[in-house]
């Protein structure tokens, strides 16, 4: 990756993390941990990879992104706002009455949201449908999905994974935000999805395991995915829940609780 690109992405991701902390703090509820762990992946896709047009969010031939782990809505909203889909000021309205920014993404309300999600396991199926539509139309557009590792508990995920390889959807790229934690604790203690890579491989997917906070590795993985024919690709991204905010990192308690004003200030100081 070029030094300039790396700098740009690093700066964007930092601002997006700041906004995640601010908006969840302002909302007094929400999911900061899994938003921060996914911030680098989502930043990379929207600022470097995806063919999209903020001026025309419904452009038919755009690439699609499905946040299958819908509770990480803050990272998607912050990224879309920074990418120009809607004014950043709206981020303050997260989870408030009559706001576009619902607790979980609503495609009817937010420009740039390609699929409504929130019930876990459902987004990846919709992404399979989007990739299938592209295949029917012989289009070159890509569909990206972002799953949580806890989300892999849902049986529907594996129905979707089976269908994607059966129909050879090589324009489907699914990231797993492998931060190792879900609400009730360590994924290995709650209901282990491991080994994640071997599972996807056994289902016929091309599988790559990367550091989900390394933009160079994310870029290389997407390149490798796009070079793969006849198979969908799973990118298992090793991440840190709460990444960037020391007191949130690897702390399961920050899955679904909001920082108070003092904690927001501390977090923002760390994210400067």
């Amino acid at each position: 990756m070029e030094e300039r690109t790396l700098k740009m992405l690093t700066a964007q991701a930092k601002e997006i993390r700041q906004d995640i902390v601010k908006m969840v703090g302002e909302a007094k509820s929400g999911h900061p941990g899994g938003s921060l762990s996914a911030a680098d992946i989502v930043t990379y896709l929207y600022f470097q990879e995806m063919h999209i047009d903020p001026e025309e969010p419904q452009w038919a031939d755009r690439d699609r992104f499905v946040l299958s782990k819908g509770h990480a809505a803050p990272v998607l909203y912050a990224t879309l706002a920074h990418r120009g889909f809607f004014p950043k000021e709206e981020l303050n309205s997260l989870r408030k009455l009559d706001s576009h920014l619902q607790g979980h993404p609503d495609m009817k309300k937010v420009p740039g949201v390609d699929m409504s999600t929130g019930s876990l396991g459902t987004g990846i199926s919709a992404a399979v449908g989007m990739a299938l539509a592209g295949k029917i139309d012989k289009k070159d557009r890509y569909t990206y999905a972002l799953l949580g590792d806890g989300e892999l508990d849902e049986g529907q995920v594996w129905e979707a994974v089976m269908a994607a390889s059966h129909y050879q959807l090589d324009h489907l790229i699914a990231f797993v935000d492998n931060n190792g934690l879900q609400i009730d604790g360590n994924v290995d203690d709650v209901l282990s999805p491991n080994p994640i890579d071997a599972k996807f491989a056994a289902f016929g997917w091309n599988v790559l395991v990367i550091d989900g906070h390394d933009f160079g590795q994310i870029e290389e993985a997407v390149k490798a995915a796009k070079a793969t024919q006849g198979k969908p690709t799973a990118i298992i991204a090793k991440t840190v829940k709460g990444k960037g905010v020391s007191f949130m990192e690897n702390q399961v308690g920050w899955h679904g609780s909001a920082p108070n004003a003092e904690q927001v200030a501390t977090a923002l100081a760390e994210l400067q």
Partner: protein
Amino acid sequence: MTSVATRDAYGEALAALGQENENIVVLDADLSKSTKTCDFKKAVPERFFNMGIAEQNMMGVAAGLAACGKIPFASTFAVFAAGRAYDQIRNTIAYPKLNVKIAASHAGLTVGEDGGSHQMLEDIALMRVIPNMVVLVPADGEETKQAVRAAAEYDGPVYIRLGRPKVPMIFDENYKFTIGKGVVVKEGTDVTLIGTGIMVSKALEAAEKLAAEGINAAVVNISTIKLLDEKLIVQMAEKTGAVVTCEEHSIIGGLGGAVAEVLCEQCPVPMAKIGVNDSFGQSGLPDQLLEKYGLTVEHIVEEAKKVIARKK
């Protein structure tokens, strides 16, 4: 009177529609020979996708297709569509109001020998309570054909309830189905029999029997349960002063529930509900089951007389 299963009419209509409209995509969950989407597969193989025995994923895939401009029809048995994949229908299809058509066959008792596990008697209730969802229950083959076309033309989620057995043809090609419009199949003054699906033909038979006893019963076909034709229901209740609903569904939450909701607010009249009385079904021949659970012409006649007697 000729008889056609609504699922057969669906298969035929879908295959024809698929050849005309290249946006139609069909998904099935390993039941294409039973749901009759196999007709579409034969006609338009490149737009038919078997999703395997995985209904939850099928509904999500349909949503994704619709989000990219396709008009997906997703078919399986009603028990697996409305039951197993309820969350997916609610959250991934109806919540974002995506243009997905769910065509659910083998609804009701007339599934027959497969028994209670497969006899879906709650789907109308489950589907009509979801915002944005249109619920269609065609009464015969002709209405099914037209309903499939109307569903494809309508922009938004539609649940189409279809049956396994052959049912008498009530309508011919001069009939015009419109989403949201009920139809007076027979005029009458003493009582209104409101039927849906396979029970419309039974309501018509009941009206004939009542006529022989000097009772003039009207028969209304309500094939759109949501968006319900409230105006027609109120008008007929006002005119006849008594109502009997007839459906191959639980008496809770289905056609009877929907009609009662309208009438209690707008025109309270004596009313009876014919349907399955809050129970599961069991194995048996379709006709034996209809008899056992009271979905018969005789029962309709009996209840019609009772509601007429309750008129003040």
